[in-house]
């Protein structure tokens, strides 16, 4: 037992489909990985062709490991009048390294999960306006909603999969995962040029078009084929 001066925090973890817990080290997120979503967020300013978008420096941001939320009741986060959902495929890593090739990265995937990147869009707009950091918009408490991790071998049909997010049973986001500008192994490879990827890392792989606001009372469901679905609802703060 180490000589702690205060109680240490609990290790953040998410359940594995079939049993056990996946311990979370870091959470990386990729922005602007579906071309339609890029256009939606920056409107007329988009000039990138799909080829140019593939070559660009990736938009990488992070969330704290303990911002993991397994769904259920989520009180409206502090300090926002415009909370947005962003349904995403999440990749869980069993190992890693630096400067990984896409094929090496593929071997290091533990499994996949459904996730929701919750965003204080009003604070993100201020950050963009001032060329400031995004963390006040993105690194929010309970802001990394994620379902159970399915081990990789049991989810072989990634290329055929389709993400669907509904709010109060209205479908808001619906897209094939093959519409991603960069596939998951290229995303991992990109991140490993800037950070050492390690076991326990989660990677949110970007959201398709159709993002929008959540208010107290809203109930969200996200599914990707036979991955464990995510369900949560927003309550008054």
């Amino acid at each position, binding site marked *: 037992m*180490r*000589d*702690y*001066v*205060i*109680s*240490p*925090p*609990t*290790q953040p*973890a998410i359940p*594995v489909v079939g*049993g*056990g*817990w*996946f*311990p979370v*080290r*870091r959470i990386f997120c990729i*922005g602007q990985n579906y071309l339609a979503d890029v256009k939606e967020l920056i409107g007329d300013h988009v000039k990138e062709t799909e080829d140019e978008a593939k070559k660009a*420096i990736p*938009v*990488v*941001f*992070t969330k*704290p*490991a*303990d911002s993991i939320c397994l769904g259920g009741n989520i009180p409206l986060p*502090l*300090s926002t009048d415009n909370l947005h959902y962003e349904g995403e495929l999440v990749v869980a890593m*069993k190992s890693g390294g*630096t*400067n990984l090739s896409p094929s090496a990265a593929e071997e290091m995937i*533990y499994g996949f999960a459904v996730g929701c990147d919750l965003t204080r869009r009003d604070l993100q707009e201020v*950050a*963009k*306006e*001032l*060329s*400031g*950091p*995004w*963390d*006040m918009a*993105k*690194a*929010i*408490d309970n802001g990394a909603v994620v379902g159970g991790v399915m081990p990789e071998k049991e989810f072989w049909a990634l290329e055929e999969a389709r993400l669907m997010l509904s709010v109060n049973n209205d479908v808001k986001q619906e897209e094939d995962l093959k519409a991603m500008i960069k596939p998951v192994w290229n995303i991992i490879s990109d991140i490993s*040029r*800037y*950070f*050492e990827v*390690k*076991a*326990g890392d989660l990677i949110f792989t970007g959201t398709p078009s159709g993002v929008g606001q959540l208010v107290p009372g809203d109930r969200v469901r996200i599914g990707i084929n036979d991955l464990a679905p995510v369900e949560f609802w927003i309550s008054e703060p």
Partner: protein
Amino acid sequence: MSDFVFAPPEQIVVPVAGGGLFPVRRIFCVGKNYADHVKEMGGDPKDVPPVFFTKPADAVHTGGKFNFPLATDNLHHEGEMVVALKSGGTHISEATAASHIFGYAAGCDLTRRDLQAAAKEKRGPWDTAKALDDGAVIGPITPASDIGVLDKGSISLSVNGETRQQSDLSLMIWSLPEIIARLSGLFELKAGDLIYTGTPEGVGALVVGDTCRIEVEGLSPLDFQVYERHG
């Protein structure tokens, strides 16, 4: 919940001066909190308020041998005073903020300045610039019970014995209680949180071979040496 599918990462800790280990939960940082640093970065402190950003908890590096980071040609030092919290909450008042402080340390917010410039240019996130591995360098934590509230005193950073940054904690735009109060309006603060309180003017590049020292009056100094990266 000990049924992990592989070994979880080790709890990140910072040594406490006088004994014991401080377990780290999150790392928050304040940017643009000294007027003369805002000016040297091309801003006007009257126009731009300070900002908060984060680093991963396991970016903690406790000094000594430091390997030059990936993906940068312009690694910058930002000497700072760091606050460690023993408790927290939301909407903490400035009047009660000090009661949540466990202690203080000298720290260095390492920054990939080239990637930060690219991020600002594209109005993108700062994380590739700020959330780098080993980018939260920190010295031993001195308990607040030994020194009281640290709201003034000199802060300095030297490279190879030459002073590069020199200021006083009293020149922070957001005071320590104000930082804690404002931050707790955005995030629930908890025991184990570290807050980097911003850097004064004089930031600059570090290269392989440099020895960097950060001193804050009343605290243990922080020293690290930059080594070439292998792999």
